[in-house]
């Protein structure tokens, strides 16, 4: 294992596959009855496969309850998968424990949505950023200077190390969270709604910062967000999730310009466009009803209860992810704009 663990710490070359998940499943048991027996399960993540290449950003979008945040936490090994594999740099890390997980954490870090909630209010910013260095025994050797360097990387100053989180604005707090995530020089960051809590003018500052850091340090990002415009801006490839499953995955341009899954199409159509002269090409698609309960997902295709193209087959057979072009897949029996040419 020591040999394997060492290999994950080498920096991945740009474009090389750095992380992949295979058929990942997370079911939360539903208990009920007098004896609190398991009477069912919430299918939070239900058979997701995804790969991330070094230096790229994969965006994960979908509405509340689609499983995007659960997927982020599974990848980090913050929660245990029910089934499936997490592979980091060619090594299956799904069953890693204790010291192995700590070694993994040096390479995989997470930034949360609510910066203030993720920072200990009683500790000074310098200590917060130094904590991962201390845990991994790297503080003694130049840790203080490393903290100052990290503050500078995220656009703050060395004097800020002596202050408490509440003394900072929301945007600055998010910068502190990013500095902490970068402390151990990781290769992959899972960004879970990193700018959703920020005002528009501040959101743009943090997005630019994340882009700079990615370029400067060769980071790979999994960017989880519900804001489709933000995801389009930052992502190279985009995965659209619905009720625990990926329904479409591909290059940003394909997903946004030629969506093949009706849900992707509806989601894009629902975004209000900040242009008073904008007229949606085919009119706005307004989906009916709500997202079904993930404890009782519909049979067959999970989107069929809200889909305007649903046919009997959609309730009987779950559509598989089918290739629509180079590295572009979607799961629909009746995909939009079936293209005749195939550019594989």
């Amino acid at each position, binding site marked *: 294992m020591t040999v394997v663990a060492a290999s994950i710490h080498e920096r991945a070359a740009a474009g090389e596959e750095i992380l992949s998940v295979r058929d990942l499943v997370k079911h939360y048991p539903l208990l009920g009855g007098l004896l609190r027996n398991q009477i069912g399960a919430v299918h939070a993540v239900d058979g997701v496969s995804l790969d991330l290449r070094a230096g790229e950003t994969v965006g994960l979008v979908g*509405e*509340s309850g689609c499983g995007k945040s659960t997927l982020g936490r599974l990848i980090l090994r913050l929660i245990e998968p029910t089934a499936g594999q997490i592979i980091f740099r060619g090594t299956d890390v799904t069953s890693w424990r204790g010291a192995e997980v700590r070694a993994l954490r040096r390479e995989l870090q997470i930034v949360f949505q609510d910066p203030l909630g993720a920072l200990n209010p009683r500790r000074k910013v310098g200590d917060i950023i130094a904590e991962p260095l201390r845990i991994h025994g790297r503080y003694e050797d130049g840790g203080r200077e490393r903290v100052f360097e990290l503050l500078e990387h995220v*656009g703050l100053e060395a004097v800020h190390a002596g202050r408490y989180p509440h003394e900072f*604005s929301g*945007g*600055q707090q998010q*910068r502190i969270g990013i500095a902490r995530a970068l402390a151990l020089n990781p290769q992959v960051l899972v960004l879970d709604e990193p700018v959703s809590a920020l*005002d*528009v*003018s*501040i*959101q*743009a*500052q943090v*997005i*630019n*910062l994340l*882009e700079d850091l990615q370029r400067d340090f060769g980071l790979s990002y999994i960017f989880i967000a*519900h804001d*489709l*415009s*933000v995801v*389009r*801006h*930052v992502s190279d490839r985009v995965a659209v999730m619905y009720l625990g499953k990926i329904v479409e995955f591909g290059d*940003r*341009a394909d997903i*946004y310009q030629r969506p093949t899954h009706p849900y992707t199409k*509806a*989601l*894009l*159509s*629902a*975004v*209000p*466009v*900040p*242009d*008073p*002269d*904008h007229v949606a090409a085919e009119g*706005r698609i*307004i*989906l*009916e*009803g*709500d*997202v079904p309960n993930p404890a009782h997902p519909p049979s067959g295709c999970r989107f069929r209860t*809200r889909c305007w193209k649903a046919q009997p087959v959609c309730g009987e057979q779950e559509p598989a992810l089918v290739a629509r072009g180079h590295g572009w897949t979607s799961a629909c029996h009746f995909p939009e704009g079936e293209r005749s040419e195939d550019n594989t």
Partner: protein
Amino acid sequence: MSDPVLSVRNLTTHLTTPSGRITACDDVSFDLRSGEVLGLVGESGSGKTMTALSVLGLLPSGVGRVARGEIILDGTDLTKLSRRRLREIRGRDVGVVFQDPSSSLNPVMTVGDQVVEALAAHDADVSNASGMRRAVELLTLVGIPDPGSRVAQYPHEYSGGMRQRAMIAIAIANQPKVLIADEPTTALDVTIQAQVLDVLRAARRETNAGVILITHDLGIVAEMADRVAVMYAGRIVETGTVRDLFRNPSHPYTVGLLASLPLLSDMGARLQPIAGVPPSGTDIPTGCPFHPRCPLWRERIDCVEVKPPLRAVGDGHFSACHFLEEVPAAGLFAREGRT
């Protein structure tokens, strides 16, 4: 042009907080006509919600106070009314929809009973039976499926989107002249947001109310509003038609907001953020509150000493900038800023 149904003149609202007095609204003036949607936009703390609460007479008691100005609804100055008279008007002439429907609905009353309560509060002749019939009509109007049986359900049996529909039904129950919607879709998913915005449009058509739509989302403004007022640090810094604002923004802050937005059509061109952070209520800069973040400031003394008044840029289009002639449509935020 018809007379405004609501006219706010020089509204100044103070909040007393442990860290000192905050001017939440500073000399805010606007008109609202029947059937039109006025978008009130700005970032957190810009004074949008406090403007709405001032109009509704719902400022937190003991903390918030209208210090100056008039709020004229159909010829009556609301700032001169007793709390009791104000309560009669609120809910009858002014309806309101807040961001979080779960905390605005009563959890132990059926949705139908809450609609009937709203009706009966302003019309003593409403019987339970006629009220329920009207409740079913209203739930139908806002698109609640199977309204005949849904009317007898409690809010927790509704989804988030349905609760917000129910709130809109209650808000328009008495055919209000003004409907205030404060971030009505912020807590909702995008596909549900599209549904609820559609319901708001239907509610406006049905009542012909003037709508004040408060939002931080410029996409929603572009889609829903006829006119827009942009707020910054308690002041309206620019106001005009939706097209004026998006096509010919004439205040550096409006230009900066638009440049900060990632667009669905954009493929990764670098965003141009506004430098710095919005001021907090207790330390609003002197003169023009935007000057420390403004690329047009260039250390000029007017911006620091004199609050710029709203000046006409075009017909019905106003900007509160001393140097609005210098505002170009593009390139203002070419250099990126950092907090």
